């Protein structure tokens, strides 16, 4: 048997020990390759949109590479630790450290090479699917499958270098261990985990500091966000290494709880495992939190833009700045709509923009009762059916996004900023539909006489106080939900907005045209790149964190097998074994998800206002829930496989 054969046989005959390592490496290669294929795709390199996507994807590619590096490094070190006894035996048999180094090096390279091959092959299959998906998500049609030579070479070189580097790097692990230590290997008795009050308090303090920083809400700056991230990550680290072990120690104090059923076994096991795994749990938590947050942000933005679209019953809006151009503009729009046989109605609206005194000056928009009711009637909504006295105003606001600084003014008497002079009481506030007026947030309705008085107060040269629009109601485009990017409304309005922009540039008009379909499509398209990259990174983090855990469990399998074997001899029932070990696995799988769910919730709700995310509870629950579902699936698979192994040693 030659040395190379020995190395090959070692890999081939010890399949179970290597399989987790191999599969996760191959998985990493597959994802990396699929990404690379997309980046190098000839159909993408062209357009502006494609360039943006590519930059995002490249960043993702770096992140995946760093993650694979850490992952493979971690896998190798725990894998070698599990095999230290084998190396001890080889040393006793007279193998020099050079021989063992060569063996490890060869094995790593064999596995590396195999995983590159398998990863490329499965990546080819996946990429067909991925290209289809990518095309539909980014709104680009017909990305053909191609022979990705460039991506193949790129992936192969990157990963061979990675395995080469890591193979050399791991030799350092082995060198310093003495033969005796190698032989006793992982059966060395474990030490009681240590905690320090000081570090535990520091952990709590860091988390609190992070929350306090984020609590500054919309006043938060870039520096504070970075600082909050650093303290949050640091706090999470201490949470696992100190606070969690400390909590379990406290739990162990009560004999009544501890000395009951299988609690004794799993609680004390857990105290050790949580320390052993603290670093890994920490990494998984941070990765999952980042993924949850990005998905949460994406979902909230998605909801926001859909709401914005759905909240506006008027498809097209022409802001009037110059009355003399208006006729020409209306004629042009009519021509365009008639060409496609689209019937429409218009309504003219007008509001006054000002500020009211309420401690600080607060921006408001004012409308007359008649004007508001005209708008409401056209939009098919209930009109404001009441008399408003001369010195009162009714505050209407959007229930989805209430203006906090205005709501407190109910019942107060306020006056307007000069040159306007009018003092009135905000007699009541009520949630209502605003049809895009008042920035979609709030509107103060006055009676017609009061409004006209105000309008007359506006000086000729400051007509900017007055805002006037022509709104187009197009019944044919009414729908539930949001349009697709290929929808006639989107196509038509995108064209109208673009042409109006040209007309503005050419000096043909001074009136500004906007449309809900156009803004929706624009935001959606900008977002889609973000979604594409974000969701894929999230998926990768989710799956690789699961394989981290899987690998960790399998490196501990032999120890667990020994323990449950002897426990079963003294009368541990199958059900109790399943409960005790299943619970431990469950905690490892679900604690990070729970913690990152909480982190995501805290961070997004604190930062929500700064980034105009609106209501974040549902998006956070959805994104965390999705990760939870994925994790539950991995848990079910890993648990059943682990149980089969343990069941074999139960007598």
């Amino acid at each position, binding site marked *: 048997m030659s040395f190379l054969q020995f190395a090959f046989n070692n890999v081939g005959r010890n399949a179970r020990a290597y399989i987790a390592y191999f599969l996760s490496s191959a998985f990493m290669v597959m994802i990396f390759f699929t990404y690379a294929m997309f980046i190098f795709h000839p159909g993408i390199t062209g357009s502006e949109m494609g360039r943006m996507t590519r930059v995002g994807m490249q960043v993702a590619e770096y992140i995946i590479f760093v993650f694979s590096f850490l992952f493979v490094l971690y896998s190798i070190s725990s894998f070698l630790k599990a095999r230290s006894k084998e190396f001890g035996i080889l040393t006793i048999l007279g193998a020099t450290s050079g021989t063992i180094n060569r063996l490890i090096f060869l094995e790593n390279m064999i596995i590396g090479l195999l995983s590159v091959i398998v990863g490329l092959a499965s990546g080819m299959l996946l990429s067909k699917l991925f290209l289809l998906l990518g095309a539909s998500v980014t709104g680009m049609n017909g990305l053909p499958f191609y022979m990705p030579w460039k991506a193949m070479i790129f992936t192969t070189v990157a990963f061979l270098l990675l395995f080469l580097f890591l193979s050399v790097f791991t030799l350092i692990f082995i060198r310093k261990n003495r033969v005796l230590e190698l032989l006793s290997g992982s059966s060395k008795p474990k030490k009681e985990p240590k905690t320090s009050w000081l570090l535990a308090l520091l952990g709590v303090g860091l988390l609190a500091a992070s929350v306090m920083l984020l609590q500054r809400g919309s006043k938060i700056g870039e520096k504070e966000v970075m600082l909050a991230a650093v303290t949050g990550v640091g706090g999470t680290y201490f949470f696992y290494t100190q606070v969690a072990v400390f909590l379990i120690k406290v739990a162990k104090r009560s004999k009544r709880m501890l000395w009951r059923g299988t609690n004794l076994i799993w609680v004390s096991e857990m105290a050790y495992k949580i320390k052993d795994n603290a670093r890994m749990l920490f990494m998984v938590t941070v990765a999952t939190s980042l993924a949850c947050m990005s998905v949460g942000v994406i979902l909230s933005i998605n909801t926001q833009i859909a709401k914005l679209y759905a909240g506006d019953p008027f498809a097209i809006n022409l802001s009037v700045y110059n009355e003399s151009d208006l006729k020409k503009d209306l004629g042009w729009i009519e021509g365009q709509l008639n060409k496609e046989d689209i019937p429409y109605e218009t309504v003219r609206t007008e509001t006054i923009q000002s500020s009211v005194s309420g401690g600080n000056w607060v921006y408001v928009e004012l409308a007359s009762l008649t004007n508001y009711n005209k708008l409401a009637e056209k939009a098919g909504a209930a009109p404001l059916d009441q008399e408003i006295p001369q010195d009162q105003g009714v505050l209407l606001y959007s229930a989805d996004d209430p203006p906090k600084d205005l709501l407190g003014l109910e019942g107060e008497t306020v006056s307007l900023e000069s040159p306007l002079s009018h003092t009135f009481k905000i007699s009541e506030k009520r949630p209502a539909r605003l049809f895009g007026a008042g920035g979609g947030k709030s509107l103060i309705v006055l009676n017609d006489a009061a409004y006209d008085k105000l309008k007359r107060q506006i000086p000729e040269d400051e007509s900017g106080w007055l805002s006037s629009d022509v709104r187009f109601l197009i019944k044919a485009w009414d729908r539930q939900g949001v349009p697709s990017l290929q929808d006639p409304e989107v196509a038509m309005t995108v064209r109208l907005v673009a042409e109006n922009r040209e007309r503005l540039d050419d000096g043909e008009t001074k009136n500004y045209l906007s449309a809900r379909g156009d803004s929706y499509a624009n935001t959606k398209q900008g977002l889609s790149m973000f979604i594409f990259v974000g969701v894929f990174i999230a998926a990768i983090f989710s799956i690789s964190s699961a394989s981290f855990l899987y690998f960790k469990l399998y490196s501990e399998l032999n120890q667990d097998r020994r323990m449950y074997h002897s426990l079963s001899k*003294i*009368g541990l029932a199958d059900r109790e074994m399943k409960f005790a070990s299943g619970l431990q696995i469950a905690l490892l799988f679900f604690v990070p998800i729970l913690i990152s769910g909480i982190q995501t919730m805290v961070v997004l709700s604190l930062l929500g206002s700064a980034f105009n995310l609106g209501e974040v509870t549902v998006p956070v629950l959805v994104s965390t829930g999705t990760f939870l579902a994925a994790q539950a699936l991995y848990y079910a698979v890993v648990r059943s496989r682990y149980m089969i192994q343990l069941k074999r040693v139960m007598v």
Partner: protein
Amino acid sequence: MDLLQVRGLGKVYPGKIVTRALHDIHLTIEQGEFVGIMGPSGSGKTTLLNLVSTIDAPSTGEVLINGKNPFALKRKELAAFRRRELGFVFQDFNLLDTLTVAENIVLPLTLDRRPLREMEKKLERIADKLGIRDILGKRIYEISGGQRQRAAIARAMIPGPSLLLADEPTGSLDSNASRAVMELLEGINRSEGTTMMLVSHDPLAASYCDRVVFIKDGMLSSEIHRGDSRQAFFQKIIEMLSFLGGNAHELSSIRV
């Protein structure tokens, strides 16, 4: 009264080469008796212990403990049976590193969900008896081999089993610790009246038994009873071993 009855017990391990580990074993152990099983390596003594301790199923014959056949029980009931009726002492102790000595000892009771007060009372009693009170709060890696085996014996004894099974309990211990552990087992056997079955290579350990049964090639070959003198019993065991075990008789002339 017979506590353990083994009737026509046989065990065959199937495979490419069929191994007949035990053949037609008949053995009866009375209530309160301390019986040693000896034999050369590969004679089948560990197989016999595994069958009696219900962790392996016989191919033929039956085992009755307290008149009950444990192999007729369901898996779940079997676990409970082992927990309550059988006590185990192993060569490598099989104590859990993650637990303290006290926690290791009460483990069978916690699995049975006994009340806390009962557990504490029993723990105190057994710890006093075995002289391990001082080390109850320690971890397994902090105590010596002899102390570990004491802790393991305490764990085996705490549920009050009808039968204590010891598999090479002195195998990992030095001679002083071995003697102390055997004296302890003998003492428990006398004072508590616990029936014990010991499998051992060590003639010194076996000399603490009331009776030693010898197995060779999977069959009972002979048995000797202890008289008044342990020393004489020890000599007889050595002679029997050298008679049974191939080359060993060359050594016997030197020893005697």
